[in-house]
C-alpha cells in the first residue's frame, strides 16, 4: 500500500505566451510521502503546484492523479478529482464573507452533499484539531495570520483529501506565528497524509520530508533526502541557493 502512486508527472511543460516556465518536469509522489519543493523566486514552484490540481492548464505532458490523467478529463470529472486534493495558499484565501465554520462547511455541503449537522460535526472536529474550536463563529478578518492559515488547512481537510498541496504556507506570516502552522503540518505528516509542500523552512523539511526537490530554470535539477540535499548539494545552482537561505536564517 505504501507504494501506491498518488501523483505522477511526466514531461510536464507550461508556457505563458512564449515564456516557458516549466520545461520538462518529471516526478512521482507515493501515498504517505511528504515532498518539499525548494528553489529561487520565479523558478516556477507555484506554477508547478497549480498544475498538479489543474488550476493552471499544462501546455504539454501528463499529470496523473491515482492513474487518471487530469489533462485529459472534462470539466465535470476534473471538479470531481479536484475535491480529493486539498490546497493551502500563501495568502490563506479564506472567504471573508463567511464565518470560520461556514468556510469549512461550504464545500462538504455543496460538493459532497453532506448534511448540515454532519458537516458541522466534521468541521468542529477539524477546528479542534488545529486548536481553533472557539473561533468557529468568528469572521476571518478578526483572526491573526497564523490562525487564518490553520483555518485554511482545516478547510482543505474538511473535504477529506488524499493529498495536500501547500504553496509557501508560512511565508506571509509574522515569524512568531510560523511555528503554530508548521506544528499542524507536522502532525498531519505524521498521521500519514500525502503532502507536496513548497517551503523554505529547512527545519520542517528535515524533520518530515521524505524527499526535497530543487527546482530552477524550468527543471527539477536535484532531488534527494533532505539531510543530503541541504548539507551536501551536488548541483551548482542548488549549492548556491542553499548557501543563500542558510545565510538568511
Amino acid at each position, binding site marked *: 500500500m505504501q507504494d501506491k502512486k498518488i501523483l505522477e508527472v511526466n514531461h510536464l511543460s507550461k508556457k505563458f505566451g512564449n515564456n516557458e516556465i516549466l520545461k520538462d518536469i518529471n516526478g512521482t509522489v507515493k501515498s504517505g510521502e511528504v515532498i518539499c519543493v525548494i528553489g529561487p523566486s520565479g523558478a516556477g514552484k507555484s506554477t508547478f503546484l*497549480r498544475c498538479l*490540481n489543474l*488550476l493552471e492548464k499544462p501546455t504539454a505532458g501528463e499529470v496523473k492523479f491515482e492513474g487518471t490523467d487530469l489533462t485529459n478529463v472534462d470539466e465535470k470529472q476534473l*471538479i*470531481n478529482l*479536484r*475535491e*480529493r*486534493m*486539498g*490546497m493551502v*495558499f500563501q*495568502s490563506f*484565501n*479564506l*472567504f*471573508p*464573507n*463567511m464565518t470560520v465554520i461556514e468556510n469549512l462547511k*461550504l*464545500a462538504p455541503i*455543496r*460538493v459532497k452533499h453532506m448534511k448540515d449537522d454532519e458537516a458541522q460535526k466534521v468541521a468542529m472536529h477539524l477546528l479542534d484539531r488545529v486548536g481553533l474550536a472557539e473561533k468557529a463563529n468568528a*469572521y*476571518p*478578518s478578526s483572526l491573526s495570520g497564523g490562525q487564518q492559515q490553520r483555518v*485554511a488547512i482545516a*478547510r*482543505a481537510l474538511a*473535504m477529506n483529501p488524499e493529498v495536500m*498541496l501547500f504553496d509557501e504556507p508560512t511565508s506571509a506570516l509574522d515569524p512568531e506565528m510560523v511555528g503554530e502552522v508548521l506544528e499542524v503540518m507536522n502532525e498531519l505528516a505524521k498521521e500519514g497524509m500525502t503532502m507536496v509542500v513548497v517551503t523554505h523552512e529547512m527545519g520542517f523539511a528535515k524533520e518530515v520530508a521524505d524527499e526535497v526537490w530543487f527546482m530552477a530554470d524550468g527543471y527539477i535539477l536535484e532531488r534527494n533526502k533532505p539531510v543530503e540535499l541541504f548539507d551536501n548539494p551536488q548541483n551548482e545552482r542548488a549549492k548556491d541557493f542553499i548557501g543563500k537561505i542558510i545565510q538568511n536564517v
Partner: protein
Amino acid sequence: MKKNFKAIIQIILMAAAMFALTVVSTNHVSAADTSLQRVKQRGELIMVTSPDYPPYEFQVNKHGKDQIVGMDIDVAKKVAKDLHVKLVIKSMNFDSLLVAIQTGKADMAIGGINPTAARRQSVDFSKIYYTGGQSFLINSSDVNKYKSVKNLKGAKIGAQTGTLQYGLAKKRIPNASVKGMDKSTDLVLALKTHKIDALGIEKPSAEAYVKNDPSLKMIPSGYSLNKNETGAAIAFKKGSTSLVNAVNKSIDQIKAKDLTSQYLADAGKYMKVNTVNTSMFHYWKYFAKGVEYTILISIVSTFFGVLIGVVLALMRFSKQKWLRGLAISYTEFIRGTPLMVQVLFVYFGIGVVVNIPALISGMIAVSLNSGAYVAEIIRGGINSVAKGQTEAAESLGLSKGDLMRFVILPQAFKNIWPALGNEFISLIKESSIVSIIGVTDLIYQLNIVRADTYRGVMPIFVAMLLYFIMTFALTRVLNHFEGKMKHAG
C-alpha cells in the same frame, strides 16, 4: 404659439418612422382612409394635449378630482359629441403631441397648435377654430415706461423658444434682445424678477395672467398678421381626411355661434376658483401623487435594473463569445444615448408595434437604462474580488455556479454597495425625465401646479425638498445596510 419640434424629437420621429415603415410595408400600404370609421367603431375619440397652458388647457381640482379643462377641451368635447363618441383625454409634453398622433397614440392633438407650413408637412390640420392675437405682458410698475409696443425698442423681450412670438419679437421689435425659454411659467417669473422687460405671449394667456396677478399688465402687440399662421387648429395624422372633414363641421358651428367666447369665459371661471388659494399646502394632493409615481417608477426600475444588471454582468463573464458581445454592445449603446431619447423611443418607437401605456414605457426605459449601469458596477465588483478567492473555491471542487453564488457575488455586492446606492439615488432623480411622455411623476405635477397657481418658484422649491427627502431617506437606509455588511467580515 407653442414650440416647434426639437432635434431630439426628430431623431425619435425618424426612428419611429423607420419602425412604422417596416411594419406597414409588410402589411402593404392601405390607401383607404379609415380614420373616421375607426373612431366610430371604437366609440372613443382619443385626444392628446399638454395641460399647462391656461386658458387653452390646464388642470384643476374639481370636487376633489383632477380634471383637465379649458377652451380647447370644450372644443374637443363638442367635436366628440357631434361624432356621437366618448372623448378620451391623454396628456403629455407639448413637444410630444404631434409625434403622438403620427405614431397612432391618439386620433388628434389639440393644444393651441398653429397650423404652420412646416407642421402641415408632417400632419393634417382642421380649420382654424380660434384666433387669439398677440400681446405683451409687462410689469405693472412699468406701465408708464412701456405705454405701447413702440416703447419696447431695444428692450429685453422674452418668448417661448421656437414659437411664433419668438420669431415676431426678433423681426418686428427694433434692436430688441430676445430671450427664449421653454415654459411660459418660467418666462413670467423672469418678467417678474425683471430679467426681461416684456413677454411676448398669446392674448388669451396674457389676459389670464393679468386677471390673476395684479403685478402684471398687458399691452397689445400691434402686429398685423396672417390669420392662417396665428390661429389654433386641431392636428391629425396625415391622410385622415374623413375625420378632418367631420371635425371641420363642428368647427364651422363653433365659429358660427362664436362658442369660443363662451368657452374662454368658462375657463376663466375655473381659473378664478383655482387661484384663490395658491398655498402649496392646498396642492398637497398634486405633490403626493407626483411623489407616489416617482417612488413607484424608482422601485420597479431599481428591481428590474438590478435583475438586468446581474444577467448582463454574468454574460460578460460567459465563455460564449456572442453572449459577451451582446452584453458589451447593449451596455455601450445604452450608456452612449441619453435617457430622454430612450424614454421617447420606448413610448413612441416601440409603440408603433405594440401600444405600451406611458407609465409602463417609462418604467421599461428607466429599467433598461439602469440595467446597463448596474451591469458595469457589478462587473467592476466581480473584478475587484481577489483572484485567490476563485482559486481557493476551485481547489475545493466548487462548481462555477456555486463559486459565483457563495463566494464572488456576496463579496462583489459588498464592495459595490456604495456605487449601487449612488445609482439608486440618481435613478430617483433621473426618473423625472418620464414626465415628457405624460407620466404624472413629481416633475410633471410640479409643472401642473406652476401653471395652475401662477407661482413660479414655490412649487419648484417644494419639489426640490420632496426629492431631497426621498434621496436622503434612501441614503440612510443604504448606510444602514452598509454598516451591517461591514460587520460581517
